[in-house]
């Protein structure tokens, strides 16, 4: 009974995501409140990653579920704080809608609270590449920085450092300021 319910729920969510409009509105974060009058050091804070606001009139309103569905849980970033996808340099290290969907459902909201996605609440469905890239793995670029923890990772520790191995790509989680970043690296020896 529970499994059937879950299947129906997932099917409902997947079908809803397929019904999403392709025209999307995306806005970037342009500014935020200062949380101090003075700043101790000379640097501006490493801002939370720029995010896009996804707006649609078709958003399903499931109580207790995320209001926006995420076909792709990963956004490639070339610089910290910059969400722009550079044409020709796209890395989609995640997969078809089904698997992403499942991954997103479990990763994002459970036990009554949001997972820590480092301010990555609003996703960018306006990036045509992410949506149409479809199934399969394209080459990952060493040094590329992601702001979300990739899906389907296995953790390992080498020489005291933590690495994640996710769908064929090695990442090193790092902390930049207080923002988590996942950097594509070569396989640790």
């Amino acid at each position: 009974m529970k499994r059937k319910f879950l299947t129906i729920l997932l099917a409902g969510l997947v079908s809803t995501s397929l019904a999403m409009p392709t025209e999307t509105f995306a806005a970037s974060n342009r500014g935020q409140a200062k949380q101090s009058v003075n700043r101790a050091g000379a640097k501006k804070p490493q801002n939370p990653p720029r995010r896009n606001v996804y707006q649609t009139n078709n958003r399903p309103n499931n109580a207790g579920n995320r209001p926006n569905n995420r076909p792709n849980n990963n956004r490639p970033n070339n610089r910290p704080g910059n969400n722009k996808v550079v044409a020709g340099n796209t890395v989609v290290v995640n997969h078809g809608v089904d698997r992403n969907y499942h991954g997103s459902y479990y990763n994002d909201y459970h036990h009554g609270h949001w997972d820590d996605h480092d301010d990555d609440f609003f996703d960018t469905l306006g990036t045509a590449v992410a949506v149409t890239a479809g199934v399969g793995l394209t080459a990952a670029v060493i040094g590329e920085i992601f702001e979300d923890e990739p899906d389907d990772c296995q953790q390992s520790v080498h020489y005291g450092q933590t690495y994640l191995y996710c769908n064929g790509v090695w990442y090193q989680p790092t902390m930049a300021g207080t923002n988590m970043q996942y950097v594509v690296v070569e396989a640790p020896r």
Partner: protein
Amino acid sequence: MKRTLIAALLMASAAPAMGQSSQPQAQDDPARVEAVTALDELSARLRTLDQFEVNVNATTEEVFTNGEKLQFLNQVRYVVDRPDKLYVSVRSDRKYRRIYYNGSNLTVTAPTTAYYATVPMTGSIHDLLVKANDQFGIDVPLEDLFLWGIDGVPKPVLTEAFLVGFAQIGDYATDQYFYRTAGVDWQIWIGRDDKLPYRMVITNTDDPAQPTYSASLTWNLAPNESGDPFTFTPSSDYKLVPLRPDQLASAN
């Protein structure tokens, strides 16, 4: 007749600096002098606190391209033991970080995902905040609580300062003050008895939408923490990650 009288009274009691022309406030304007004195007294008071805990309930705002201004909640907790021990917990629905400084090491943890990063660090709390910002781009909310009144920290150049008036915040009688400097307007509600800030509202005037950080502060001047709250001991599920030096000169 009555309506006119009331209107006249209201106008007379309005804060003197408001509604004036765009003349800058004179340096010797009594309203300004009083407000600056209040800020100095607050700073002096903060400097006398050697061990304390502050809990902050705040809202912060972010502005998007078309001026959509969204509000988010956050909670901050400080535990302080001067001169060189600091614990900060900053928590929002999307991000949870704890910062530990015990005079020897700075550790930043992400409790929800169980990552932590640590670097050696020494110096006073002020030194820590400067180095953490310069070297790693780290900062904490309401840093002013640790910067105001410290020798060598430049005071903000105020273009305006005045008393707004009395405000009762829970059990505390406070006076509300307004201050303006380039890029920031801020208001502090200062306790009449103890000169502590009970509320702070910081408005970013660099952006036309003026996103604001609004914070309620609860003070505990006799914290009794068991154990050592300033040293992080990772449990087995915590994973060590490097703390990345901030190479961007003006990190966006």
